[in-house]
């Protein structure tokens, strides 16, 4: 059976319990001890080798590349970055890994010269996603492209069109869509309905204080090259995330990962958004707000839900997480596998998995300790833990594997984030700029999400 499908079906209540500590008001508390010793990984069959090209070796490109080094059957044959410093780093790192990759400055040259590429991974500033994706798809190559899809909806639409025209696969990098912990949380919320009706969501990403970046003296990119690729200068190249020309600001860089989950779990796109934010702290050339607080309203199949989302670049406290608040319980989830907690309302019905959790305890799963009927302090309830299958791979690895497996077997494996899904998220996220600009409530029409 195909890899991703198999992994999905393995996502049981038990592995949810391994992946999240669960606390209840005097009902049940699960503490996890050394869960990683539980299940031994099954030896993987040797998959067909895929030849991969990397476009963009900045922070995110490096993450994707390093994730690929852990995936059997992936050979990186080419790497490209406009900045020779990063291009050379990639060449050197891949050599250490016994992959002799050709390196390029210009992605067009990579696409032209590299024959037999199965896919490219694109991790460049948002404004380049569309031209690069379109060029690769038209060259007959599958594409994994980082989110935000584009910094303009026009760019997003072009990407959808290129994908449809070429019929090649296009996966957008909202990697939580492939993460077993999120897939399981979705099941708990939407299939098992353990939280009751989810009336509110609270999401955040706090990150302390990203500096205005500089670069090692003498490593500047030639000004002509910068301009050819659309950059004003080296300073903007290094700090593209803060400029409208290249990116979508903190809401697109960080918020879009989580706002994507809101729509996914609520089974609805937002109806309206209000927002507040600005460049309040930094006194430099940054264009995008250094903090945004927003409230989205959703008409879900169960009724109205409201979601608060904040992204701050002035504090790192409490970092990144999403809190789904329902009438029977609250689930806190994060891509950080150490963060996961479920709270049950005292009057909530007893859950089926609680029985299973007891059984697991008597079936030799020493990692799980159940304490029934003990009244616990809230600090005890908030046990943060990890473990199980969901903790065995890095967050991006799942999403990359979904993409690679879909290339190998498109009949059995479907992409978890095809361009239409990412488009809806881009509409939700990019609209916040308008709410900030006009300082008013901005509404969405259902047609806006169609592409």
């Amino acid at each position, binding site marked *: 059976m195909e890899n991703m499908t198999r992994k999905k079906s393995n996502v049981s209540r038990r592995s949810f319990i391994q992946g999240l500590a669960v606390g209840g008001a005097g009902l049940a508390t699960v503490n996890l001890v050394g869960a990683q010793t539980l299940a031994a990984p099954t030896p993987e069959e040797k998959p067909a080798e895929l030849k991969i090209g990397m476009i963009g070796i900045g922070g995110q490109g490096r993450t994707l590349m*390093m994730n690929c080094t852990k995936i059997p059957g992936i050979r990186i044959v080419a790497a490209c970055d406009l900045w020779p410093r990063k291009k050379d780093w990639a060449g050197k790192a891949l050599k250490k890994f*016994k992959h002799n990759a050709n390196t390029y400055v210009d992605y067009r040259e990579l696409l032209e010269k590299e024959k037999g590429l199965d896919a490219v991974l694109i991790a460049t500033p948002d404004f380049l996603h569309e031209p690069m994706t379109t060029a690769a798809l038209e060259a007959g190559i599958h594409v994994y492209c980082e989110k935000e899809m584009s910094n303009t909806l026009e760019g997003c639409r072009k990407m959808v069109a290129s994908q449809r025209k070429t019929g090649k696969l296009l996966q957008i990098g909202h990697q939580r869509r492939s993460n077993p912990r999120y897939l399981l949380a979705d099941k708990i919320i939407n299939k098992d309905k353990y939280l009751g009706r989810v009336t509110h969501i609270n999401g955040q990403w706090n990150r302390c204080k990203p500096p205005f970046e*500089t670069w090692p003296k003498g490593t500047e990119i030639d000004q002509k090259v910068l301009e050819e690729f659309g950059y004003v200068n080296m300073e903007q190249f290094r700090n593209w995330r803060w400029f409208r020309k290249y990116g979508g600001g903190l809401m697109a860089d960080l918020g879009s990962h989580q706002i994507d989950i809101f729509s996914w779990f609520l089974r609805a796109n937002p109806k309206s958004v209000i927002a507040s934010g600005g460049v309040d702290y930094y006194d430099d050339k940054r264009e995008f707000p250094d903090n945004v607080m927003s409230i989205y309203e959703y008409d879900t199949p169960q009724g109205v839900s409201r979601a608060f989302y904040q992204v701050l670049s002035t504090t790192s406290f409490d970092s990144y997480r999403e809190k789904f608040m329902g009438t029977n319980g609250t689930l806190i989830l994060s891509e950080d596998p150490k963060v996961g907690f479920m709270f049950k309302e005292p009057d909530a019905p007893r859950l089926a998995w609680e029985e299973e959790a007891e059984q697991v305890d008597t079936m030799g799963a020493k990692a799980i300790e159940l304490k029934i009927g003990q009244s616990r302090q809230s600090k005890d309830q908030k046990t943060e833990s990890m473990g199980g299958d969901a903790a065995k791979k890095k967050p991006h690895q799942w999403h990359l594997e979904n993409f690679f497996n879909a290339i190998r077997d498109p009949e059995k494996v479907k992409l978890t984030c095809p361009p239409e899904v990412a488009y809806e998220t881009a509409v939700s996220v990019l609209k916040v700029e308008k709410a900030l600009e006009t300082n008013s409530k901005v509404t969405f029409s259902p047609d806006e999400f169609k592409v």
Partner: protein
Amino acid sequence: MAIQKERTVVIGDIDKPMVRASHNAMAALFEIYALCDDADYANSAAREAFETLDRLEDDLSRFVPHSDVSRINALQPGQSVQIAPHTMECLLLAQKLCKESSGAFDPTIGPLFCYYKERGWIIPQDESELKALRERVGMNLLSLREQEHSVSVLRSGVMLDLGGIGKGFALDNMIDELREWNLDAALLHGGESSVYALGKPPGKDGWTLQIRHPENQQKSMGTVTLCNRALSGSGRMIVKSGQPVQHIIDPRSGHPVKGRLSSWAIAPTAGESDALSTAFLIMDKSEISTLCKRRPEISGMVVDRDSNDLMHITPIGKIFEGEEWRI
């Protein structure tokens, strides 16, 4: 200029603007002191170095469930796991240093360490208790396949812990990043125990580091001056029934180390000094001396307390220019 303190060393006076950047990783505080007139420039450099540090922790820490080390520790014989290039590099270095120290440094010591920790560091009367545990210890239980970048284990229950080399290895990788920034000079330390001196402050032979006394934090053991070299210190002692016992186990005997209070190692890289300072806590002086003769770029110092309660300070190895142990 203020004197900055950390556990192993105190940095001497430097008459130049110094930018200090710090970051928490590997359950320790990492700091970079950079000599640079432009604070923004130095901070950007430091940020890049710390990013590298975080990436390494994500793969090398046994406390991170998706790290390469956790994946290796979950292996059963017959299974293998594909790991990142930097993890392979660190494992190969660990393997080499294990061999060079005749097995004194061994990152698979975990099962024995846990045993002693649970039992209050008392050597059992009956050695057979240790036998099963000792079978799960040894670098040779890991099979590293460099070409396929994969690792397998020869026995189940291997507990790899790169705590004795990871911080130093991370410092070396951070240094690689910092070199590209051409800072005048920089001093890095990680986990309060390993220091790398990059370049030298203007007008000086190197960074002068003061070594703290193992039993009295207020007292100095002397100074050492380093340039493009690394220094690490080891030694965490507890007192059990009036007897000082080290928190360090000799993988060769399976027993906690006795009598040695502290050890230091100087080496060209922090990965080496980190692992060797641990090894020097375990090896006897003649063993250390043999190692330092074979690897003349390495030197060390050990402090022992003998049965008459007398303290002995012994520098070992070739003394470099400006790098002598001034005690």
